[in-house]
């Protein structure tokens, strides 16, 4: 594995551009002050109630995600390159979805295997032939990118279903501004606080064509027991829209209403944070208590916009991911700006053979997995674990892909021993509306707090950092 790219220091020990003030700050601030500020930050997060639930952890009903008070810095030019690449990528994702649920030209052109699309567990036949307002499927995308050297950002995965984490991006900034107001006075840091504004504008822009000028938007949550519930209520509040559960909605004559103290009120756009499977017991899982009977009929009748659309999972599948460079070229006629991590598709016999022979060097992921569950990190595994995984691979190779172990870049982080480099990734949030694509500068930086760990997921001991895009 190559040495990780250190975002703060050059190999000769000098500081990279953009990090000078941070270096000075870290050197001149007394350690006690940092300790005190970290304690304050923890208290703030607890008080505000920013918690999340970890599935399978009975001891901890609610936890807070560890927050690191050292910001992660991107220069203006780095960000410009990255954001141009993100816009390109998300445009391609939307074009791909409109195509596979429409004319399916990409399949006809032989650029992607038909079974990968049509037998994909996230492909929704209900969506075939349905035209969505402005042909937008992924209104909110979270694209996970990593940095491996001075020039290149790699996309690790595209989250096109219900990406989460944006509340941490916003709260991390709020907490930093409360703890270190002086830093913000000296440095010009691009603000992120307008995200809710941009999100609302995006959601309203994709309302059904028949909706009133000022459409009613609501956020559909699975409820308080969902691990991301805090974020749902946070966003509904910031957007000034109702936070609804399935039982608050009803469908009458293919129109969706919410139950209010003044009687039923029509809903035009649903920002839904509920998976496809649970949306409508009449169409998908019949045992879903969280959904709304009849919602899919209203959707197919064009009376409501769901954001994101149903069936977008076919685009963020890890096997489809490996075709993204071709997808970008096919629809946009451009070379991809953001790179793809080289990927072995275990469905292909040659690739499977290579993967089985090199399990100790590779990261093997389930095609449909998320949250860092169900993956094998070769270099960190023992022989027994690898044997179990090899058996799984042979049994259902189409469920897996493999990638080289990437050296995620590192950023200075507070750990028990002091300040040390830790691996980070970045999830910027890309909003696609009828009028334009919007991205607030930065995103959510996740950091693997354990020494040497490459897993940044909060469910696996990761933390977050404020992400600064310098405006100078």
């Amino acid at each position, binding site marked *: 594995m190559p040495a990780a790219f250190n975002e703060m220091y050059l190999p000769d020990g000098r500081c990279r551009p953009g990090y000078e003030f941070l270096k000075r700050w870290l050197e001149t601030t007394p350690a006690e002050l940092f300790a005190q500020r970290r304690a304050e930050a923890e208290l703030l997060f607890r*008080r505000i*109630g920013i918690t999340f639930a970890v599935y399978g952890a009975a001891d901890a009903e609610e936890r807070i995600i560890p927050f690191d008070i050292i910001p992660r810095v991107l220069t203006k030019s780095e960000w410009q390159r990255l954001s141009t690449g993100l816009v390109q990528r998300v445009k391609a994702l939307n074009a791909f979805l409109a195509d596979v649920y429409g004319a399916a030209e990409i399949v006809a052109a032989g650029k992607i295997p038909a079974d990968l699309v049509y037998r994909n567990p996230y492909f929704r036949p209900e969506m075939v032939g349905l035209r969505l307002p402005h042909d937008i499927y992924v209104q909110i995308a979270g694209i996970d990118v990593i940095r491996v050297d001075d020039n290149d950002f790699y996309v690790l995965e595209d989250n096109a279903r219900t990406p989460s984490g944006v509340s941490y991006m916003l709260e991390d900034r709020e907490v930093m501004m409360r703890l270190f107001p002086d830093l913000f006075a000296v440095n010009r840091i691009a603000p992120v606080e307008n995200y809710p504004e941009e999100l609302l504008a995006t959601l309203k822009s994709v309302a059904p064509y028949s909706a009133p000028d000022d459409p009613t938007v609501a956020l559909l949550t699975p409820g308080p027991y969902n691990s991301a519930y805090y974020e749902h*209520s946070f966003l509904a509040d910031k957007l000034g829209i*109702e*936070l609804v*559960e399935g039982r608050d909605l009803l469908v009458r004559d293919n129109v969706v209403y919410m139950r209010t*103290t003044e009687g039923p009120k029509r809903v035009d756009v649903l920002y839904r944070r509920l998976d496809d499977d649970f949306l409508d017991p009449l169409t998908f899982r019949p045992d879903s208590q969280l959904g709304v009977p009849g919602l899919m009929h209203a959707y197919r009748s064009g009376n409501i916009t769901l954001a994101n659309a149903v069936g977008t999972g076919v685009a963020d599948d890890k096997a489809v991911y490996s075709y993204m460079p071709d997808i970008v070229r096919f629809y946009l006629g451009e070379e991809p700006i953001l790179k793809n991590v080289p990927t072995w598709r275990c469905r292909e016999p040659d690739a499977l053979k290579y993967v089985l022979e090199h399990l100790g060097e590779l990261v093997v992921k389930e095609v449909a997995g998320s949250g860092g569950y169900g993956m094998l990190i070769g270099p960190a595994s023992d022989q027994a674990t690898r044997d179990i995984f090899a058996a799984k691979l042979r049994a259902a190779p189409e469920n897996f892909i493999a990638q080289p172990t990437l050296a995620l870049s590192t950023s200075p982080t507070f750990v028990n021993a002091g300040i040390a480099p830790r691996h980070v990734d970045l999830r910027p949030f890309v909003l696609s509306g009828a009028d334009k694509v919007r991205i607030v500068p930065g995103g959510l930086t996740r950091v693997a707090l354990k020494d040497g760990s490459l897993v940044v997921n909060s469910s696996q001991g990761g933390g977050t950092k404020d992400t600064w895009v310098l405006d100078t």
Partner: protein
Amino acid sequence: MLSRTADALFWLARYVERADNTARIIDAANRLAATPISYAGESNEWESALAAAGALEGFKLNQPETSRDGAIDFLGFSANNASSIKSCLGTARQNARAERTALTGEMWEAINGGWLELRRFDGVKMDGDTLSAFLSRVKEACLRFDGSAYRTMLRNDAYFFLRLGVYLERADSTARILDVKYHLLLPEGERVGGGLDYFQWASILRAVSSLTAYRWVYHESLKPWLIADLLVLNEQMPRSLASCYENLTSFLDELSLAYGRQGPAQRVARSIRTRLQNATISEIFQTGLHEFLTEFIADNARLGAAIADQYLT
């Protein structure tokens, strides 16, 4: 606003109010139980406290003997008692968490902070000092929640539903406290008692935090019918039934104004209020205080059902 949100707010307020009432009941019982028998008379204060908090039946299911520690645990902490202070604040916090968007930051911090702090008392032995620290924390948390609602909320339907919860719960609580002790409040002459009763009467007033208010209103030594007058009919007294109904009718009127529509809830509240306004304490004693209170508790529950029917489902 969503019916579910209105329902959660209404019950959030009821649970906070209930926690506060229960804390005051425990406080008063603890004090009376510590008063020498030669002053306070023989009585099982803890059984009365359980009854006043509406928890006696549930308590008896689990344990036949009423002891101080058993009662305090059941009223303060027991998970078997949906109305224990801990259960109340836990449920209130769940509701608040689910309806974060309808609350101001201050209100959420009050309820969340209070709940986190009270968890420190879990499983701690409740000697006198700890008990009084615990009870004052509970009262502070409730006051802080109530105060932040008053100071920071928009005066819209969310606020009205919250206040309806407070006053409906409070009316129920005051009526129950009185009903448990109604035998002590029989008119003069029907009871032998004298000095012993003073401590019992004072305890009733303490349970609703109005011993001092009594003195300012009546400028007299404690008289049972005046105590009943204060807690039933005096609109100046914020925990009285009359004051609760003054507020209930006014917040229901605000709601009907905001929504442009009246309904059964407004009519039920107004009829109960009119009855309280027209009553005198001597009439109430003539027909029987216990009968009056029983009927009131049932009427109050009817109003709760009417509100739920009209707005919360």
